């Protein structure tokens, strides 16, 4: 939906007028984009509430279960994602400065880092899957309730986050195409800026997931 943020925003003026002379309301579009980010935040917020409640209820079990997570992988992934946030702002900055090719390179780097993040995540998940720790898997089922809760939360939260990463990658792809075709350009870069906002939000959520899951022992 956010992908449209920019385009819809650009169409904020009634079409008849748009045909006449071009009008856009970038601040309006940005307001819409931030509102969308709030909904994302609150979507994760629901899960954070659940996490808080069960952490409170099953403190020791959570600590036990957290041992099974691979801290190194979690931290590496944090670095990857933080770096991708940097490359993202640099992509926006480059476009603002009318350096289109450079902007595309930074965007490519962001995309690559996102891939990297997902690969690490995949390795992590498949290691767990291998041990039957998987929502509905028998090992997870047999765990004491608190530990099971930890892993189910882990899969739901990182899973939802992973879906956001995937969506973000899709958006980057389409933005890259639109930069190339000139629809997104140094004078109308809002769409890229909004992609960036979305991507930073994905990063922001991960920053919280790290201590909640990997650093909990």
């Amino acid at each position: 939906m956010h992908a449209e943020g920019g385009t819809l925003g650009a169409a904020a003026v009634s079409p008849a007028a748009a045909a006449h002379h071009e009008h856009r309301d970038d601040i309006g579009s940005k307001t819409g984009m931030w509102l969308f980010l709030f909904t994302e935040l609150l979507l994760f917020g629901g899960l954070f509430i659940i996490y808080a409640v069960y952490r409170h209820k099953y403190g020791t079990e959570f600590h036990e279960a957290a041992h099974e997570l691979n801290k190194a992988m979690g931290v590496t992934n944090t670095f990857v994602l933080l770096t991708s946030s940097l490359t993202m702002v640099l992509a926006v900055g480059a476009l603002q400065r009318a350096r289109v090719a450079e902007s595309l390179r930074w965007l490519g780097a962001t995309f690559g880092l996102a891939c990297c993040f997902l690969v690490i995540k995949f390795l992590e998940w498949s290691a767990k899957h291998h041990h039957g720790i998987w929502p509905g898997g028998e090992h997870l089922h047999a765990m004491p309730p608190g530990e099971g809760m930890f892993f189910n939360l882990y899969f739901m939260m990182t899973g939802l986050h992973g879906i956001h990463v995937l969506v973000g990658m899709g958006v980057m792809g389409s933005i890259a195409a639109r930069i190339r075709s000139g629809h997104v350009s140094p004078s109308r870069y809002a769409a890229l800026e909004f992609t960036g906002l979305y991507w930073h939000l994905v990063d922001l959520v991960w920053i919280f997931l790290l201590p909640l899951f990997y650093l909990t022992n």
Partner: protein
Amino acid sequence: MAESKTGPAWTGNYLQDYGRRRGLMAWLTTTDHKRIGLMYMMAMFFFFTVAVMLGVLIRLELMNPGMQYVTPRVYNSLFTLHGVIMIFLFIVPGIPAVMGNFILPLQLGADDVSFPKLNLASWYVYIAGAVLALTSLFAGGGVPDTGWTFYAPYALRSGSNVSLAVFAAFVLGFSSIMTGMNFITTIHRLRAPGMGFFRMPLFCWGLYATSWIQVIATPVVGITLLLVIMERWLGIGFFDPARGGDPVLYQHLFWIYSHPVVYVMILPAMGVISEILPTFAGRTVFGYKAIALSSMAIAIVGYMVWGHHMFTVGMSDTARRVFSILTFLVAIPTGIKVFNWMATLYKGSIRIEPPLLWALGFVFLFSIGGLTGLVNGALATDIHVHDTAFVVGHFHYTMFGGAGVGLFAAMHYWWPKIFGRMYNRKRAIWAWGIFMVGFNVLYFPMLVLGIMGMPRRYADYLPRFHTPELISTVGSWILVSGLILMVWNLIRAIKHGEPAPANPWGGTTLEWQTTSPPPQLNFAVAPTVTTGPYDHTALRAAAAKEAQ
């Protein structure tokens, strides 16, 4: 281009086709907020009619003790569907999506909302959600039977189509979020020159507060419902006590959304009333800022009271006390509104017209609803009336008598603007009278029943509850007659009514400055604002001039 659609050469309006597409296709692809508002209206009344029939069926079954027409299983599905459709398909999108879409840009003096395409998309998402909800009736597994609250663990165990119904509610939530985002942005960005926040009509304030609730509360229930589906599918156990989960947590998450959402229903309706009263009193509104800010206060405090739905589930006693006191606090800004409305009538020059009657009906019925809410909010009494017919009475008075009647008031107020035709005044007043009688005969006995101890969601009941149940059923028939008369009167007006002038009621807000129905781009001349929204001096001067 030379010819101007809104200039003197163009006499068309938004109801007429323009541009490339004609007929149905022109409607289905429109980004005109007015057309989208009407499309919402059509869809919504279709579902409303379905849910109303279910409601009447419920009453028919409850007319006498014993099972007469349906099995308990079917009864349970009846009230579930009735509740789900009424809440998610009718009353939550009701005023914002229909009247908000149509009126908000007009009142702000704008051409359209900020994101017209998103607006159209939200209609399609709404339809998609509605189709999913209806599919859950026919797909294998059986009609959902959990009640509109989908409480775990029953909703996790029921063999019926709960997942689909829950998913439908999830999708509908997105439609609601999209509308909210659109309105907030529109209000921030597209107000006419000179219209500061405190010169905005109060209906816009109501929508502004509502939109914030939609944007911030809906995602929480979104994720909760998604987790219910995951739980049914993968057994993740968040809410299942058998797996260490906590069913009370489900209720917390559900009500964190679903209490604020009752203010999504009522705030726009309160906005409508704040428009109608000054117009028909022919004077400025009393306490503009108090009414505007109390909307925001209700929205904010409304987030903090959800626990009052859970006084008997075994929450900590501390939590019960905290939620009870907060619940009482939310009644205060509502009271402020009611008192300011009364004061707006004081020393007015009042014309008794159907919109005003509906507005006063709102004040009366909603006050009963709100005041019975206080009985629910007090701990000792809620323990007794919780999950009884008393609560059913309370929420029909607030939702139907409040939000529903608010919508009817809005329809009578803006119908001439929307369709450019006047309805029959006498018939409208009759319909109002029959409705008011039927409403109270239908729902007042429920309050009595609840106090007597009749639980809700009961397919059958003990003989001692018979008399009030019977009266209530008779009331439902009176109510139906009134509503059918109202609907018929309005629909008839579209074709056969007298043409409406631009400003039939003497309103002062911007929508009355354009023609009825408005042209495609709303205003021939972009309006600028120099006074508050309810300044009648110009109108009065014009009337005085005419009298001479």
